[in-house]
């Protein structure tokens, strides 16, 4: 990375990185993180030219919706779970939370459809897909516990119905959907943490591997080995011949 010679080094006042410290866990973790995600890869200024479709915005729309879900949830948490039943402002914030959840799921599923039809797992991106799938499933669980935490008729019905499915698996002995306190804590502590970690890993994997390149267009039925390559990803590129402008 070139540093503008007009600027002073941002690390000028810090102790240097010394060879003798390289065995420390801190150094190893830092080096592993930098190797995996150097700054230009973590926050790049450019994307491959094929990233040119509106379908690509649904990932970031999902993230934005998640941010609104969390923000509105935090406001509800400030005033407690009963607030929205007794205050018009509270009800307004609850409505924001509900519609941001509906938006989140809508954008996430469209993003899933797009990622599927782009076969976005290709080229060592399978783990990105796996974490995306987990994000979806964890989100369903988070929404479910949210509906249970409403403290109204809907919560009563959902809880008394859902208990049968969950009890049949044996999980109902611990995960008691009729226990409001427990369900609220799962909804505001455990599951958002899980979703946050899963989504975080998913986004970092996208940055690490990059956005999946397009399929190569070949004759139907022909083998799809790109000519001039001996095999798989990591060999010569498809879109431009090396050295050409």
């Amino acid at each position, binding site marked *: 990375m070139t540093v503008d010679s007009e600027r002073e080094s941002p690390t000028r006042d810090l102790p240097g990185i010394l060879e003798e410290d390289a065995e420390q866990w801190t150094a190893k973790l830092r080096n592993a993180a930098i190797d995996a995600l150097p700054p230009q890869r973590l926050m790049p200024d450019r994307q491959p030219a094929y990233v040119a479709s509106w379908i690509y915005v649904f990932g970031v729309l999902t993230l934005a919706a998640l941010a609104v879900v969390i923000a509105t949830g935090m406001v509800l948490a400030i005033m407690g779970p009963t607030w929205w039943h007794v205050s018009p402002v509270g009800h307004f914030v609850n409505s924001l939370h509900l519609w941001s959840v509906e938006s989140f799921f809508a954008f996430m599923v469209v993003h899933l459809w797009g990622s599927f039809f782009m076969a976005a797992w*290709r080229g060592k991106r399978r783990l990105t897909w796996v974490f995306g799938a987990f994000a979806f499933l964890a989100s369903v669980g988070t929404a479910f516990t949210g509906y249970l935490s409403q403290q109204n008729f809907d919560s009563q019905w959902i809880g008394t119905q859902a208990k049968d499915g969950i009890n049949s698996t044996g999980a109902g002995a611990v995960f008691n959907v009729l226990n409001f306190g427990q369900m609220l804590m799962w909804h505001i502590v455990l599951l958002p943490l899980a979703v946050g970690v899963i989504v975080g890993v998913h986004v970092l994997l996208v940055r690490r591997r990059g956005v999946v390149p397009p399929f190569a267009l070949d004759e139907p039925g022909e083998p799809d080995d790109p000519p001039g390559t001996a095999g798989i990803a990591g060999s010569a590129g498809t879109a431009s011949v090396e050295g050409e402008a």
Partner: protein
Amino acid sequence: MPPTSRSERRSRSFKPDRDVAEWRGAYVRYDLVKEFLVALGVVALLVVLLTVAFSSPDETPVTVRSWSTNNPVDFAQTAITELDGTSESATYGPPYNTGSNDTQSIGFFSPEKWVGVHIPINTAQDFVIGPLRTLPDRPDVTAALDRYQAAPASQQQAWTAAYEKAVASATFSNGVLHVVHGAYGPVAAIIGDLTSMARSGALDGALVSSRQFYATDYTKPLLFIADGNYLNDLAGAQHLQGNQWGMMNETGNYPGQAWLWLYTLWYQVPPMNSSSSGDLEVWAIMMLLSLVMILVPFIPGLRSVPRWSRVYRLIWRQHYRSLATTPGTSAKT
């Protein structure tokens, strides 16, 4: 990503649904932070507009008090089944009790049986006798309960069976439950007193209270309420019942949990829709399908659907066009 050696690449054939040749072509400016902030603004505006337009539903919850006030006969009909141990909660089985011979299973696989009882519920004691005994200064109630509990089981069953038959045609007026005359022992008084206790609101509190002051666990009142028809009828009116695809629905005209469409679908089709182990069967199917969704990249055939469907030709048509028009390159490789 470290390059693989030629020999490694040769040893593994290129599968277009699994592999891809990494991009060596052009990059264009793309401001990720700006994109996120714009998306945040758009979503925030959308959510505010939806909120101003539609708000959110908040149907008043059912209480034992509202149930017994609006339909005291249904309450009494439920209460007698709690006392004689024939209600759905009383015969549920794990995790509440061992009262059921119908624990759900698929062959030998019966996790609810293996896990056992962890939330013990004895409906006669927890829903009827225990709450009534909290009433102060009611020697008549205490006497009725003592007489009932002192009687042999066969006598108790004779009383409750007779009452259960009679309460099917009970009426309610002037604050009193009217049942045709019969040999019910103390049972008529017990159910009558419980109905009055419920209508006063005291039963709601008695059901929630536990060993500690602060209560957040509504298992007992919810199980009791769900055993009756009142909650169920309200749900049916809102199209929330299982056979109405209610799992996906919300009260009123609000959108619900549309993403549960596949989960609720299996409850509508045989054999799950009439199976006594339907819940476990549907869970097993959904666990399997969830696994399939997670493992799409690893499943040949399924992972080829994107390429076969050719939807990608629409998504990347700008890219393919640019390759076709750039000298020295080709969309085909």
